[in-house]
Every structure is written in structure tokens, then in C-alpha cells.
């Protein structure tokens, strides 16, 4: 399913390329190209139009990968980086996709810095989390997991597990397994090879499974 010409607010479409395996090239929007040309010609203020169009979209992309308190500064960084890299933007491609690439790489850089300085918060889980995993694995009903408290526990388990992965595995797990992007698109977003993404995807998924099995109270299923 390709989504054309969507702009702006609301969560970005993780399923854009899920079925086709293609990168979501939603085409170069004439108005974006026009604005980019204006900025390149020296009209700095024209860049504000691009921030207005894509600020919400980029905030949603970044919010998936980073803790809430770091989203704003990273979105800020994404737009500054985009401005500085604008002369390198190929004006035949989609500005939105180009921008999301910068955003994903900024998130990856954030985690690399954090891991290097060992600032990644390591939360701990209680036996209740283990019981919750056990219930999810046992229950057949999908609706049972849609409740607010279920989401809260899922979020806590996810944060706990992601903090224990390397920045590379963390990004791949998020993009491939949780957002449902293709390995090709993930490779393109991160600037890696497809083989590297495939290996990391396999490794991160296995690591996640092991971690969840190791939560106290979450017995091995099957």
C-alpha cells in the first residue's frame, strides 16, 4: 500500500511498504521542490514552510525511537541537519522520505551517544510483568490486550528489553519487527547494507525472545 502526497500530522505510515517491499517514494511534491529551491536561492525564511508541513510527521517518527523527553531536541536537530544538507537533496525524490532518513539516523546517533556514555537507563521488571507476558501468550482474544493497563505493561517491558540491546539491534528491532518495515527500506533509512539489516534483525528478534523468556514469572511457551 503506497500512500501518496500525505503530509504532516499524525503517526507515519509504518505499513507503506510492507506489502510491496518498496521504499515509499511518494514522489516529489512540486511545492516542496519549489520551497527547497527558494531556500537554496538564499530565502532562509522559506524553510519554515517545510518545518510546518513535516514537523508533526518527524516528531512522530522520532517519538517511536526515543524517550519522550528527548524528542523535541532531536526533532530540532533533524531540521537543522536537513537545512545544512539541503544542497545534497536530489530534487527528483520525495522530500518527506529524505527527511525521515535524516530523522532515523539522528535517532540512531542519539542511541550511539547514549550507549557510549553509558547513560541508558536500565529499568527492572517485577513478577507482575512476567505474569502479564504469560497471560498474553496464553490468551486467544486480541481485545484483551488492547486495554490501557495492558499497553502500559507492554510499554514498560519494551523499554526494559530495548535498553538491553545494542543501538544497532535496537533500531532494527524497532523498524523491522515493531513498525513492520521491509529490510530493504530499513537498510535505506539507516544507510546500511540489506545483509547487515537481515543479520541484525534475526539477532535482535532472538535476543528479544530470550529476554522475554527470562522475565521472572514468564514461563517458556511451547
Amino acid at each position, binding site marked *: 500500500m503506497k500512500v501518496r502526497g500525505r503530509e504532516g500530522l499524525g*503517526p507515519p505510515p*509504518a505499513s507503506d511498504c510492507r506489502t510491496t517491499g518498496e521504499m515509499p517514494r511518494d514522489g516529489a511534491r512540486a511545492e516542496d521542490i519549489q520551497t527547497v529551491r527558494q*531556500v*537554496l536561492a*538564499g*530565502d*532562509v*525564511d522559506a*524553510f*519554515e514552510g517545510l*518545518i*510546518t508541513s513535516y*514537523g508533526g510527521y518527524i*516528531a*512522530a517518527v*522520532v*517519538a*517511536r525511537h526515543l524517550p*519522550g523527553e528527548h*524528542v*523535541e531536541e532531536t*526533532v*530540532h536537530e533533524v*531540521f*537543522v541537519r536537513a*537545512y*545544512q544538507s*539541503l*544542497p*545534497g537533496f536530489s530534487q527528483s525524490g520525495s522530500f518527506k522520505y529524505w527527511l525521515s532518513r535524516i530523522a532515523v539516523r539522528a535517532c540512531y546517533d542519539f542511541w550511539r551517544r547514549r550507549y557510549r556514555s553509558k547513560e541508558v537507563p536500565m529499568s527492572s521488571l517485577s513478577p507482575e510483568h512476567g505474569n502479564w*507476558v504469560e497471560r*498474553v*501468550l*496464553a*490468551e486467544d482474544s*486480541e481485545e484483551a*490486550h*488492547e486495554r490501557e493497563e*495492558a*499497553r502500559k505493561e*507492554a*510499554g514498560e*517491558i*519494551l523499554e526494559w528489553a530495548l535498553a538491553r540491546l545494542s543501538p544497532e539491534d535496537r533500531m532494527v528491532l*524497532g523498524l523491522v*519487527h*515493531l*513498525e*513492520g518495515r521491509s529490510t530493504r527500506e530499513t537498510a535505506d533509512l539507516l544507510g546500511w547494507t540489506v545483509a547487515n539489516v537481515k543479520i541484525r534483525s534475526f539477532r535482535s528478534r532472538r535476543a528479544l*525472545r530470550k529476554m*522475554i523468556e527470562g522475565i521472572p514469572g514468564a514461563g517458556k*511457551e*511451547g
Partner: protein
Amino acid sequence: MKDAGKAEDRLRKVLAGAYLEKAVRLDGMWRTRVMEDIRRLGPLQESPGSGWWVPDRFVWRFAAAAAAVVLILGGLALKDGFAPEFEMTRTFYDQPLDYTEIYLEPA
């Protein structure tokens, strides 16, 4: 085994749901702050104005030609050989001292 797969998929969906619903409300002033930084950076320069500057697209256009030249020269070198005897003779005439060193050097 199939049930285990289904259960794992169910867990993945729940985790993905929690992951995807993460939303954030940006402070109303963030756009102004970004624009302040952008204005501080000043207008972008497509060309630095120096006579030595070559745009990236031209560099890449010439990359293909450069690669072709390398291939042709490589092919010629393979075809004609590197003529080590010629090189040795030239070294003997040009730098006899170096030649002696090369000659006496253990293999």
C-alpha cells in the same frame, strides 16, 4: 510449535501496539527555536565561489570516465606486461647505486 508461533506473534503485536502509539506533544515554541538556529546558520551556498569547487554531480559524472580509463590502462598493462628488465636496465643507468642495492638485497 504452531501455537508457540501464534503466541509469540500475539506478543509481538501487543508490543508493537505499545511502540507505535508513543506520541509526543511538542512545545509551541519549538518551531521558532529551530528557525532561530537556521537563521543563525545563514543562507545556504550552492557554490562556494572558489574556482576549485566542483559540484558533486559533476564529480560523479566523471567517475564513470575515470573508471573506464583505469580499466583501459589496466588492460594495456596486462597485455604488454610490466617489462621488469626494462625497469632494471633503466635503474642501472640512472641510479647505479640503487641498482646495486636492489641486486644485492636478499629475496
